[in-house]
């Protein structure tokens, strides 16, 4: 059997600009002719990626932010050309890098179905044939002739996905579509995708949702810094990815000068047990402290917020010092946040850091700024604590 897609030695180079606006202007180009100061740097988003896709494959593409996943999908969808290498394709490709591409708020739902469908490459006859099914799937019968601007965002999303769900192309390329919408909608999307893959079509799928990838994909590709570091079946790829992430586990992180911004300088984040002899491990049966050493340069209303994710990259919850009575003052701050003992299950966690100004504007976001492992501090006799289900194990007050 011939592969439906042959990806051969694909590389993609971007030029990144230092201290310059991303838009070129004529003046800058002319000035640049006389001024040979090097302000650009080459950045390889993809390097020598090679793999074959066979008809009926469902391939999950995994990797950290910036590993080159979206660039790979953009090259496969012909949106941007590779710098070198080539791809041979043998089938109609439809790419869904975004739901609702080409939607216009002034047009009615009906008109948008036709517009969006034709941009995605559907023939008018195909759209007509599936029109009732699309409207039904989206559940917008009553509003089909209302301008899109009067739709709720959930309805817009459902309509957009409904159009895409009826694409009949041999290869579907899907980028993080499931990151939007509520839980129910995500389930619906996943269900539809499972139907599609069962019908024998080929899917390439990027997602941070590892459990969805695991259930949906037969193969997995791990991208790391633009290179394909692992190709194999999806379960192996996911565990490879998780292992490679765990290399970065650190319970103290010092930040260099690139974390000195206009409003603040981030010095360090430290995670430790509050009373512990061994500073290198974190156990679950002692309170855990998250210490943030940050310097605020300007008088103002700042707070920090952490999002905590588990090893499947699922967001568990967020916590912050806003309205906690502890504020960030101008100058050095040593914030300590205490997580009660046995609150978190043993396992791997990572934190996203948000620094927020005036309660609403995030001025700094870094995903997975620090990762750590919590191990079981004590083998409990009788009930094995680690086998308790669920994400957290809070100790509640009981009374009788």
């Amino acid at each position, binding site marked *: 059997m011939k592969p439906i897609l042959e990806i051969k030695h694909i590389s993609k180079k*971007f030029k990144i600009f230092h201290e310059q606006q991303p*838009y*070129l*202007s*004529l*003046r800058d*180009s002319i000035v640049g002719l006389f001024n040979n100061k090097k302000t650009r740097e080459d950045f390889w988003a993809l390097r020598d990626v090679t793999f074959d896709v066979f008809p009926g494959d469902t391939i999950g593409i995994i990797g950290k932010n910036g590993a080159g996943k979206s660039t790979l999908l*953009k*090259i*496969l*969808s*012909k*949106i*941007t*050309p*590779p*710098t*070198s*290498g*080539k*791809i*041979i*394709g*043998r*089938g*109609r490709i439809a*790419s869904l*890098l*975004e739901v609702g*591409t*080409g939607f*216009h708020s*002034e*047009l009615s739902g009906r*008109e948008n179905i*036709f*517009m969006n469908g*034709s*941009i*995605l*490459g559907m*023939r*008018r006859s195909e759209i007509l044939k599936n029109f009732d099914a699309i409207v039904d799937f989206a559940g917008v019968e009553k509003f089909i002739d209302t*301008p899109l601007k009067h739709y709720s965002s959930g309805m817009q999303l459902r309509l957009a996905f409904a159009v895409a769900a009826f694409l009949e192309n041999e290869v579907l390329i899907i980028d993080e579509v499931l990151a939007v919408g509520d839980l129910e909608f995500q389930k619906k999307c996943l269900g539809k995708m499972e139907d599609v893959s069962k019908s024998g079509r080929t899917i390439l799928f990027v997602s941070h949702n590892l459990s969805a990838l695991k259930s949906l994909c037969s193969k997995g590709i791990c991208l790391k810094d633009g290179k394909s570091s692992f190709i194999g079946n999806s379960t192996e790829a996911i565990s490879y990815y998780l292992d490679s992430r765990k290399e970065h586990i650190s319970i103290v992180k010092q930040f260099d000068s690139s974390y000195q911004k206009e409003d603040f300088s981030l010095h360090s984040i430290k995670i430790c047990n509050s009373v512990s002899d061994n500073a290198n491990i974190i156990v679950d049966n002692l309170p855990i402290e998250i210490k943030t050493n940050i310097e605020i340069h300007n008088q103002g209303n700042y707070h920090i917020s952490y999002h905590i994710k588990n090893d499947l990259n699922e967001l568990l919850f967020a916590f912050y010092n806003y309205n906690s009575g502890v504020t960030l003052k101008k100058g050095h701050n040593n914030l300590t946040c205490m997580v009660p003992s046995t609150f978190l299950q043993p396992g791997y966690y990572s934190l996203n850091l948000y620094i927020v100004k005036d309660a609403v504007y995030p001025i700094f976001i870094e995903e997975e700024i620090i990762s750590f492992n919590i191990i079981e501090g004590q083998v409990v006799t009788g009930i094995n604590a680690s086998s308790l289900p669920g994400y957290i194990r809070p100790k509640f007050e009981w009374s009788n």
Partner: protein
Amino acid sequence: MEFEIKPKGKLSIGFKELWDYRELFYFFTWRDLKVKYKQTFLGVFWAILQPIILTTLFTLGFGDAISEKSNIKIPYPIFALSGFLLWSIFSSGLTNAGNSMVNNSNIIKKIYFPRLIIPISSILISVVDFSIAFIVFIPVLLYYDFWFNSLAPVYIILSVLLTTFATFGLGTFFAAISVKYRDFRYILPFLIQVLLFATPVIYPLKFSSNEILHYLFCLNPMNAPIELFRASIEKNNNIDIQSFILSTSVIILLFMLGIFYFRKTEHYFADLA
């Protein structure tokens, strides 16, 4: 169906691909027309109003003076309106096409289709507007007791085609270059304004006695279509062959330059937009 994705594509117009995606022309034009006249009270009448108002203004302001100084064989309102009708294809087509890639950057970054569809359909909108506005031309002709000559359909269709080609050449060029240099978004309206006065829209080609100026006027791409359009009216069927050929050559040159530059740079639109 086998295809290849390689670092650089071939330099051709890509007719086959455009044909495969022909329905998109219709949908883009249709979308922009719908959006253009949604929530407007007068709707498509706007397409008629603009040339009418301009013609009225110029007739009242300069009509007599220009007619006196030159040998226009048709009443000035017919003369000016015929100019403005075609000019509106050019000016609005060029404005829309020039901004079209930047305005549609969100689509360009997310999905592939032949990029030429975007500037072409934004010019098609102006052609649709023209055909609506053309309806008012007939009562104006009748009012002054004039009518078309027997070759009029050929002249009119050819003049619209020439206008479209001229608009297309410049439009694709500006569409492509303003993706990279946003400066051209500001240059464009200014250029169109200057060109209006360098085009025989409100005064005839032989208005100025300055030789050099005359030749510059002849090189104006909009010169040939407007002259051709006016030749469709009876008693007015004389075209200055020399100026027509010059102007048409400029149109062909602009057309090739536009398409060449667009096709050469389109691969990187998604990275820059």
